[in-house]
């Protein structure tokens, strides 16, 4: 049985007085693609922010390769090999396309991904390497955001709302590229609103509802009914 790379143990998260996550238990095994689904406000993004260190949690609530990382800062988490492709892409507007990629590489982890391999994956980015990142289309921006995360050669990559706000044809392209991205021995967590897309690329799926895990199962065996019950909370 493959090793566990990431574990959440009773993860709670708060924004001031508002509690967004209630005791989430979850694990990601080495090399797998895990999908997280759930409606708006279910706590998916909060979970991503917690894992990546943008939200601080209790040390033991998040373990990565056996070490407690719950209270680490985001830059420390990044150095350990976890990268986040944030919701809404969030490129650096003052940086050119290539600089956005380079800054991802500044983490200094060696591996398969560098400017060359990345431009092989997304040739359009090489063409547009010197333009400001703000002048790209939404799909190209998503490529930069993915590339920026890959440049740090992470062992675990988190995609938050990977297809939100993109045209269907672009989403198709991005999903077509995903296997090539993940095949390099990486584990991945994909947060996605589009359930069938999420199920098609993942081996297992978790559904969040109002800050709690409402369903956990293998992507190819969970039924439609189970999902809609977990998703909407309807019995």
């Amino acid at each position, binding site marked *: 049985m493959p090793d566990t790379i990431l574990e959440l143990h009773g993860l709670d998260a708060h924004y001031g007085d508002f509690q967004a996550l209630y005791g989430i238990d979850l694990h990601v095994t080495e090399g797998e693609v895990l999908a997280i689904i759930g409606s708006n406000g279910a706590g998916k993004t909060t979970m991503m922010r917690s894992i990546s260190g943008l939200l601080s949690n209790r040390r033991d609530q998040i373990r990565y390769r056996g070490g407690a990382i719950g209270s680490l800062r985001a830059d420390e988490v*990044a150095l350990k090999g976890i*990268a986040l492709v944030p919701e809404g892409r*969030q490129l650096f507007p003052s940086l050119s396309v290539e600089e956005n990629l380079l800054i991802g590489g*500044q983490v200094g982890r060696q591996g398969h991904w560098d400017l060359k391999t990345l431009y092989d994956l997304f040739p359009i980015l090489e063409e547009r390497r010197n333009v400001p990142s703000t002048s790209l289309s939404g799909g190209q921006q998503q490529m930069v955001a993915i590339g920026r995360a890959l440049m740090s050669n992470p062992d675990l990559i988190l995609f938050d709302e990977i297809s939100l706000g993109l045209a269907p044809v672009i989403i198709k392209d991005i999903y077509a590229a995903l296997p090539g991205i993940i095949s390099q021995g990486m584990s991945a967590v994909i947060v996605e609103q589009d359930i069938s897309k999420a199920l098609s690329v993942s081996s297992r799926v978790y559904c969040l509802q109002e800050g709690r895990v409402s369903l956990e199962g293998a992507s190819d065996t969970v039924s439609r009914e189970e999902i809609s019950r977990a998703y909407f909370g309807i019995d």
Partner: protein
Amino acid sequence: MDWINALVQGILLGGLYALFAAGLSLIFGVMRLVNIAHGDLIVLAAFLGLTVTTATGMHPLLALIVVVPLMAALGYALQRGLLNQTLGDDILPPLLVTFGLSVILQNGLLEIYSADPQKLNAGGLETASVPVAGLSLGVLPLLTFAIAVLVIWGLQWTFYHTPLGRSFRAVSDNQDIAQLMGINRRHVFGLAMALALGVTAIAGILLGIRTSFDPSIGGGRLIFGFEAVIIGGLGNLWGTLAGGVILGVAQTIGAKIDPGWQILAGHIVFLLILAVRPNGLFPRISA
């Protein structure tokens, strides 16, 4: 000819003001911090130069190799030890903490060096001049201006052509996402302040060679630097140089009209520009 002379002297003086301003502009650009103690740090650098030159007999310009790293180290320590704790959405903590720092620095200098005016002795450099097109230009003001251009070019290059500059811009754009790239913003802010105070050290030494200084003049230097930044437009280093030049020219022309009007003329030009172009002449980022 007198007027042309005043104009040229003003332009050269602008180089010094641009050096006062560059550090302010840099830290505002990276972390939106306005450092009220900036002027006092310039004066501190001048006094450090005084100590180094009197202790070793070094030429003040040579003393830069001691004072610049010293100020840079102080900047890093100050940022990480104190100023990082003030950063956030509320503008009060950074303002009031740097204000307190200003008072501490000023009175600390008063305690150590007394209120007597001091000067850095640069020997023949202070009076040397070269004739250019019928004008006699001081070597020191020319050198100061050249250094200012060089420093601003260097900062610009650092910002746009080095990994450090990339980090500066990334942190300035979005601190959270920059953290995701493995950038420790506290460290990056420390480096930005170190760089800013390194430039401040150069400004302080050149100030000390040019005129006499005492612990009380920090506020005035802060204001000149601030005016140059606002005239030039926030976030634009070359604009800051232009702002310094405009301020310098306003002052020398004002002094030409009436010696008592030198500083006042600079302030009035600043207020006029603020009235007409509130974002400065060459704005790049909004506050």
